[in-house]
């Protein structure tokens, strides 16, 4: 395993899994293939703009500004901005993680990043509107309210318990060495 680059290991593992499953369960294999293709299309549309946007943010948004509005001392305003950033977002959850990493690297507090992720996941405005249509306005708004509350609790616990573990990951787009600017 040592020779194979770490990045490629997971994809090789799932590819092997897929090849094993196909002959054992051909019907499910076909469904799996079709579903994967659907998601691949979705990803191909959403990930390029996401990463190009991150590239722009890295170039144009100064760290001092992010620290001021979203950093540890940003207070209620920082919380509100993070929650809104998450809830106006477009795209599925996997697109949120590179954004979250960039926010962390630029000086956003872990609390605000977790609020951002939670709101992106469960408090997106288009989704809530659709939910109101299917489950009723009362249901959708109550769940949104509880999600905001939950984001505060989850973020607070993580800020307290997991803060020391923030640093170790490489940046979303560049290598650490070239990122000190």
């Amino acid at each position, binding site marked *: 395993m040592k020779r194979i680059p770490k*990045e*490629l290991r*997971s*994809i090789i593992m*799932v590819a092997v*899994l*897929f090849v094993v*499953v196909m002959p054992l369960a051909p019907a*499910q*294999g076909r*469904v*799996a293939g*079709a*579903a*994967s293709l659907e998601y*691949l299309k*979705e990803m191909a549309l959403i*990930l*390029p*703009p*996401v*990463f*190009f*946007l991150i*590239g*722009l943010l890295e*170039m*144009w948004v100064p760290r001092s500004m992010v620290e001021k509005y979203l950093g540890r001392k940003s207070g209620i305003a920082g919380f509100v901005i993070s929650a809104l950033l998450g809830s106006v977002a*477009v*795209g599925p959850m*996997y697109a949120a*993680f*590179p954004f979250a*990493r960039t926010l962390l690297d630029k000086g956003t507090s872990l609390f605000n990043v*977790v609020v951002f992720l*939670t709101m992106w*996941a*469960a408090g997106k405005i*288009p*989704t809530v509107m*659709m*939910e109101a*249509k*299917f*489950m009723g306005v009362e*249901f959708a708004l*109550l*769940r949104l309210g*509880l*999600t905001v509350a*939950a984001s505060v*609790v*989850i973020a607070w*616990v*993580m800020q307290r318990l*997991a803060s020391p*573990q923030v640093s170790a*990951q490489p940046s979303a*787009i*560049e290598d650490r060495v070239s990122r000190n600017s």
Partner: protein
Amino acid sequence: MQIVLTRFLWIVVLGAYVVSWLKAPEKAKRAARAGLMGLAKAAPVMLSIVVIIGLVMAFVPPEWITRYLGHDAGLWATAAAAIFGALTLIPCMVALPLAASIFREGASVATVAAFISTLTMVGVVTAPAEIKYMGKPLTIWRNVLSFLAAIVIAGVMAVVLR
């Protein structure tokens, strides 16, 4: 809906690049290069997620939620819905009509709320991407806490909307 939003995102990003190019072409070029590099680095983990989602959709199909959770209104149904939501990744366009249909067939508010909450907040199949960008400890913390929060949300909603 998703397509419209995605198009909107493309237009916004393209517009931002035009502005960036006009103000400082060199910076725009570097931003594009960085974006491309990020995309290339994300490809392996994102592709493995695509394959995992395909397998999950095939072996734990979304129809199960209607088949198994539509009639039962008990606590076990709520627990099963929470676990099902955590394990799968169903787009909202499919998940919300599903949720509405099990609700009509007799599933409780708690069951529907638990399903929607864990489906959105907890991501087992997207964990490889989360680990890549956020690291293992943060990923585990966030998912475990989100699962617990989803259960509490379901409970509160069941009491309020009774």
